[in-house]
C-alpha cells in the first residue's frame, strides 16, 4: 500500500510546511514596534506587518524569517538612518514601500542592506529616495526581483546606487526597475550571477556598472538615457545577450564601455541612439554577433589596444561613424556584417558583397586625433576627403575591412522590438528641451 503510506506521510507533514507560524504586528495590533515583532517571531516564521506608515528607524533582522507587508506598508527612514538591515540567512522581504533613508558620507546607508549572509530573497518592494536602494555585501545565492527603485540623483548628487552588489556569488537580479540613482545596478567582485529583464534608466552615472566581476550573464535588460550608459570593466567571461542600450546620449556617454574585458560575448543586443554604441579599450577575444547598431554617433569605437575580437553578422545602420580606431594596425576581424554605407555589388547574388567594405572613414581618424574637428561634420570638404580615401586608402587601417559584407539588413530573431519612430522623435524633443 505505497499510496496509503504516502498519503499518511503527506498528512503528517503538511502542517509543518503550509502552516508555518504567522505573527501580525504593527498598527492596530498588540505589537506596535516592528523591531519587537521581529524579536518575538520564531525563526522560520512569517512576520506580517499591518498597513500604515512606520517611522521606527533601523530594523535589524538577525534570524531567518519572512517579512511580509499586508497591503501598503510604508517604512520611512526620515532621512536619518538605514531602514532594513539583514544579517542572517533565509530571509524574505516582500511588498514594502521603503522611503527616505539617511545619507552619510562615512557610511553607505541603504533601503535594504544585506550583510555577509546567504539566501536572502527581496521582492516586490518599492524604494524611493533611498541613498542606496538594495545593498548586498558579501552574500551568496541572493535573489532580488520585481523591485522598483527610484532616487533623486539630479537633486542630490551624493546619492548611491540602485542595486549595489559588492562581493557576492550566484546573485540573481531580475525584473527590477532602477531610476534616478547614481548607478542603476552596480557589481563589484561578483561572480556567477545573472542580471535579467531589468530596466535601468535616467540614472546619474551608469545604467550598469560592472567591475572585477567574472562569469556573469546579463540578458534582456534595457538601459536607457543614463548619464554615461553602461560600463563593464576588468572582467572576463561576461555574457551580454539581448539587451537594449538606448539613448545614452552625451559628450562622454557610451552604450557600453568595455574596458579590459576578455573572453566575453556580446550577442543579439540593440544599440540605438547612443553617442558611442560600444567603446572598447584593452579588450580581447570578445565575440560580437547579431547586434543591431542603429543611429549611433559611433557604432563601434575600437581602440588599437583591442585584439582578436570577432565582429560578425551585425547590422550597422544610420550611424554617423560605423567604426573608428586610433591606430594603424588592426588585429580584429569583421565578417559578414550589414553596413548601410556599403556601395558594393553582388554579381553572383549570394547575398554577400563582392568587394570589401572599409568601415573606418578618414574623417573618423581625423576626429580621433582632433576632437574639435568634428565641427566639420557634414561639410562638403569632408565628404570629398572620405570619397578620395575610399578609392585609394592610405591613412585608414588597410586591413580593417569586412571582406564579404551582407547586402541586406540581417533579420535577427532576438525579439527585441524596435522603438517606433514617433517614440524616437519624442525622445529627441525631450532631450532638447
Amino acid at each position, binding site marked *: 500500500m505505497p499510496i496509503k503510506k504516502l498519503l499518511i506521510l503527506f498528512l503528517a507533514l503538511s502542517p509543518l510546511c503550509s502552516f508555518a507560524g504567522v505573527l501580525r504586528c504593527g498598527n492596530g495590533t498588540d505589537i506596535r514596534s516592528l523591531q519587537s515583532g521581529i524579536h518575538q517571531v520564531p525563526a522560520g516564521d512569517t512576520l506580517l506587518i499591518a498597513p500604515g506608515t512606520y517611522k521606527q528607524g533601523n530594523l535589524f533582522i538577525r534570524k531567518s524569517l519572512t517579512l511580509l507587508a499586508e497591503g501598503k506598508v510604508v517604512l520611512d527612514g526620515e532621512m536619518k538612518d538605514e531602514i532594513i538591515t539583514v544579517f542572517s540567512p533565509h530571509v524574505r522581504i516582500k511588498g514594502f514601500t521603503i522611503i527616505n533613508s539617511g545619507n552619510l558620507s562615512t557610511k553607505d546607508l541603504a533601503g535594504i542592506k544585506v550583510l555577509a549572509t546567504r539566501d536572502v530573497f527581496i521582492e516586490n518592494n518599492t524604494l524611493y529616495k533611498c541613498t542606496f536602494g538594495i545593498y548586498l555585501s558579501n552574500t551568496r545565492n541572493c535573489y532580488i526581483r520585481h523591485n522598483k527603485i527610484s532616487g533623486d540623483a539630479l537633486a542630490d548628487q551624493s546619492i548611491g546606487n540602485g542595486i549595489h552588489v559588492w562581493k557576492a556569488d550566484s546573485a540573481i537580479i531580475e525584473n527590477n526597475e532602477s531610476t534616478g540613482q547614481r548607478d542603476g545596478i552596480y557589481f563589484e567582485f561578483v561572480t556567477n550571477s545573472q542580471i535579467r529583464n531589468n530596466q535601468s534608466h535616467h540614472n546619474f552615472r551608469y545604467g550598469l556598472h560592472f567591475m572585477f566581476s567574472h562569469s556573469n550573464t546579463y540578458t534582456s535588460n534595457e538601459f536607457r538615457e543614463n548619464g554615461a550608459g553602461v560600463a563593464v570593466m576588468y572582467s572576463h567571461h561576461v555574457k551580454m545577450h539581448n539587451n537594449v542600450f538606448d539613448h545614452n546620449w552625451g559628450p562622454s556617454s557610451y552604450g557600453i564601455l568595455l574596458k579590459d574585458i576578455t573572453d566575453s560575448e556580446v550577442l543579439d543586443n540593440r544599440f540605438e541612439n547612443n*553617442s558611442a554604441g560600444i567603446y572598447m579599450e584593452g579588450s580581447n577575444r570578445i565575440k560580437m554577433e547579431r547586434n543591431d547598431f542603429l543611429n549611433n554617433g559611433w557604432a563601434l569605437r575600437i581602440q588599437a589596444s583591442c585584439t582578436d575580437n570577432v565582429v560578425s553578422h551585425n547590422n550597422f545602420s544610420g550611424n554617423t561613424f560605423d567604426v573608428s580606431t586610433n591606430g594603424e594596425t588592426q588585429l580584429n576581424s569583421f565578417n559578414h556584417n550589414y553596413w548601410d554605407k556599403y556601395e558594393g555589388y553582388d554579381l553572383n547574388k549570394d547575398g554577400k558583397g563582392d568587394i570589401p567594405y572599409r568601415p573606418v572613414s578618414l574623417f573618423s581618424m581625423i576626429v580621433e*586625433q582632433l*576632437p574639435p574637428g568634428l*565641427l566639420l561634420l*557634414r*561639410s*562638403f*570638404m*569632408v565628404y570629398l576627403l572620405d570619397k578620395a580615401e575610399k578609392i585609394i586608402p592610405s591613412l585608414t587601417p588597410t586591413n580593417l575591412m569586412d571582406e564579404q559584407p551582407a547586402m541586406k539588413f540581417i533579420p535577427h530573431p532576438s525579439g527585441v522590438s524596435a522603438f517606433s519612430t514617433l517614440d524616437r522623435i519624442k525622445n529627441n524633443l525631450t532631450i532638447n528641451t
Partner: protein
Amino acid sequence: MFNRLHPQGPLPEPRQPLVITGTAKSVDLPGTMISEKTVHTLHPKQHIMIRLLKYVLLDILKNRMMVFYTLFLLAVSFGLFTMSGDPVKGLASLLNIVLMVTPLLSIIFATIYFYNSYEFIELLSSQPIRRNTILFSQYFGLCISLLLSLLLGVGIPVLIFAPLKQGLILLAAAGGLTMSFVSLALLSALLTRDKARGIGLSILLWFYFTILYDALMLMVMFAFIDYPMESTTMLMLSLNPIDLARVVVLLQLDISALMGYTGAMMQDILGKSWGVMAATGIMILWIVLPLAIAVRKFKRRDL
C-alpha cells in the same frame, strides 16, 4: 535659361516694354505721384522702389531656371523624407543638399541675372532714381524670388514631414545663406565689368566657402593641435556663412553630443538666447556687409 539670359541671345520679349513703360510712367511724373489716388502715404521714392521691385520680381519668377530650382528642391526633399522614414534623419540628409545647392544656385543665378539686366540698370540710371533704389530693387527681387523657391521646395516638405523646431531652423539657415550669397553675387558682379570674370569670381567664392575654407580650417586646427582650440574654432566657423549655418543646424539635430567638449561648449553658447542672437547677428552681417560694399561700388561707378 542661360541662353535666354545671354546678351547675344534674344532678349526676353515681355520685359523690355513692360519695364520701360512702367518706369517711364512713374519716373516722368515724380512730383505728381503723391496726388495719384492709388498712392497712399508712401514716399515717392519708396513707391518707385516697390514698382521696380515688382518688375524685377515678375521677371525672375517667369524665369525657367527658378521653376527648375523649385522643382529640384521639391523632388529632393520629398525623396529624402520618404526614403529615410525618420523626419530627423531626413532633415540631416536635407541639410547636406541645402548647404551645397542653395549657395551655389543663389550666387550664380544672381550674378548672371545682374549682368543680364545691366542694360536695364543703365537705362534706369539715366532717370532721376537714386542708385540705391536701383540696386536694392535688384537685390530684393532676387532674394524674394529665391526665398520663395526655397519656401516652396524645402518649406512645404519640411512642414509636411518634419514640422519640428529643427526643420524651421534648417529653413531659416537656408534663407540666411540665400540672402548672403545674393549679396556676394552682387558684390562680385560689381567688382568686374566682364561677365565671364564676374561669374568666375562667384564660382570661386562658392568654392572657397564650401570647400577651401574648411580645408584651411582643418589645416589650422592640425597645426595648433596641442592648444585648446574651442573658441578659435568657433571664431573661424563664424567667418564662413556656410559653416555657421551648418553648425547651427547640426547642433539642433542632436549631434552636439557627439562632439564631446567642443559640442557641449557650442551647445552651451548656441543653446542660450544670446548665442542664437549672436549667430543670427553674424549671419545678418554676412548679408549686409557684402551688400554695403556692393552699394558703395555701384554708387561710385561710372556706368
